[in-house]
């Protein structure tokens, strides 16, 4: 486990003005349907940002707040997507149930696997998580009859929300669907914020900061890392479920380790020590990727270049740098 002595990159735990950042972010997100078209964007792009932002923030519960590096989080994202898709296709045309299905599939498998690896650290943890992620990818990819194999899972679509007194048409109205995504995003990140502010959340930061000290304060490290991993997987799977709802499609590439790497780079780009960092990183990454892939067929090089440049020159990420700036 890295402590500040081995990490050249140090940032404070809480931003200087947490409420201000949160207020700005939600103000921007709530008004997306107003300003995004003016900039030439489309609402589905904002949906992608929310979904991948939620995935990155969920991942960051591990990387940024527990100090544990999973490199296979795409697996839980993808499992969440398939869980939602399969629920809609085979069980019931209910959007909330689809989300539950996604979270259960990703969360349970993540939790089982987490049990096996909680005593591993550092790059070894990363390596085993990558390998496990590829198992999930491989199974999804090969189980043709259930998952549609290489072509992905189709033949389902999100259902209108029935609130009892009224029904919201999130199926055809993309603005309604965007606000539905935003609502789920707000609830999920709110829960994450509460989690991090709880005694349990503090033990995670303690483990990140100094595993030995945490152990000698009586904190059962392996157990807490396992819990953190499981919680992180549940939230990541929720993001995956939303992704399936967004596209009405679940793609085996959604489990591939290249997406895991992208989730990590979004997190680092935005700032892994800042609560909202991964969301900002996801926004930057999604927009850049969208732009670059429309400009050149060699978008992969540019994405790779983003990785290299961020690592070499902006390791703190955007919010990390801003926070450091306001402190001085």
């Amino acid at each position: 486990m890295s402590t500040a002595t081995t990490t050249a990159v140090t940032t404070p735990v809480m931003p200087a003005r947490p409420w201000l950042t949160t207020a700005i972010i939600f103000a921007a997100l709530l008004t997306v349907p107003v300003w995004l078209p003016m900039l030439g964007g489309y609402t589905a792009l904002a949906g992608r940002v929310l979904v991948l932002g939620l995935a990155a923030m969920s991942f960051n519960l591990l990387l940024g707040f527990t100090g544990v590096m999973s490199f296979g989080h795409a697996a839980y994202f993808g499992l969440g997507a398939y869980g939602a898709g399969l629920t809609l296709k085979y069980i019931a045309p209910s959007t909330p149930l689809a989300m539950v299905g996604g979270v259960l599939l990703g969360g349970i498998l993540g939790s089982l696997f987490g049990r096996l690896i909680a005593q591993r650290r550092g790059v070894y943890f990363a390596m085993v998580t990558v390998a496990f992620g590829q198992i999930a990818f491989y199974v999804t990819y090969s189980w043709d009859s259930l998952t549609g194999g290489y072509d992905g899972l189709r033949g389902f679509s999100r259902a209108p929300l029935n609130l009892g007194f009224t029904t919201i048409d999130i199926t055809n109205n993309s603005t309604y669907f965007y606000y539905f995504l935003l609502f789920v995003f707000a609830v999920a990140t709110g829960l994450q914020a509460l989690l991090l502010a709880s005694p349990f959340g503090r033990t995670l930061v303690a483990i990140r900061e100094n595993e030995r000290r945490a152990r000698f304060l009586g904190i059962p490290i392996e157990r807490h890392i396992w819990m953190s991993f499981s919680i992180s997987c549940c939230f990541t799977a929720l993001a995956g479920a939303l992704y399936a709802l967004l596209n009405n499609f679940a793609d085996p590439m959604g489990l591939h380790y290249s997406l895991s790497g992208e989730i990590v780079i979004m997190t680092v780009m935005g700032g892994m020590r800042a609560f909202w960092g991964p969301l900002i990183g996801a926004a930057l990454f999604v927009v850049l990727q969208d732009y670059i892939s429309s400009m050149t067929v060699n978008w992969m090089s540019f994405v790779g270049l983003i990785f290299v440049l961020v690592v070499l020159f902006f390791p703190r990420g955007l919010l990390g740098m801003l926070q450091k700036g306001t402190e001085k």
Partner: protein
Amino acid sequence: MSMLDIRNVTKQFGSLVAVNSVSMQVAAGELRAIIGPNGAGKTTFFNMISGFFSPTAGDIVFDGTTVTKLAVAERVAMGMARTFQITEIFPELTVRENIRIGVESALGLRQRFWIGAAQKAAVNRGIDEALILTGLTVNADRLVGELSHGDQRAAEIATALTLKPRLLLLDEPTAGMGEHETYAVANLIRRLHKNSAYTIVLIEHDMRVVFNLADKITVLGEGKMLAEGTPDEIAANPIVQEAYLGKAE
């Protein structure tokens, strides 16, 4: 009955015998210092007491319970706390947050996702208590990583104290400190011992600290127990002088 009863513990690493059948009894409320030249096996001995690893042979009895094979967390739960030669703290958190994590763990709240106002108040009381006891109140909201060596050590001790330990193990509490800081930390330990009646076992290199603070001293050399006694007895012991100064020929 003694608080800590160590019976003939031995630790072997491969063919190296780091600690060779050492016994030691520490009474409740006692301050025991362990001294010895480098490589005497002090830290290995300490690590066996705190549960870092188990002895190859022998037994460790803590407050009437055999803890020889128990894991760190279980010993902590029984009331054993320790600090390290190289200060182990949460550097990017404030002093208050460092202590808070300890208090919450000690109050059994560490797996709670939510705590009520009463429990929050209890936690805050615990934090203030530890801050006052260690004289860190003025620095409470600074990042521990930014404090001086001596204050970092005090913060580490404060964090350990949140566990309300019945046995406090301090591994070279004044290591790498200047004159002033050594004095301050030694004073803190004295206060804990005299005013708050903590049972303390410490390893220490600074002989002035040892002879000023300790009720009894255990001397290790090459993994074996060389001598045990009050500071006066140890000062007069020819074996100890030989171990430290070499044969006076």
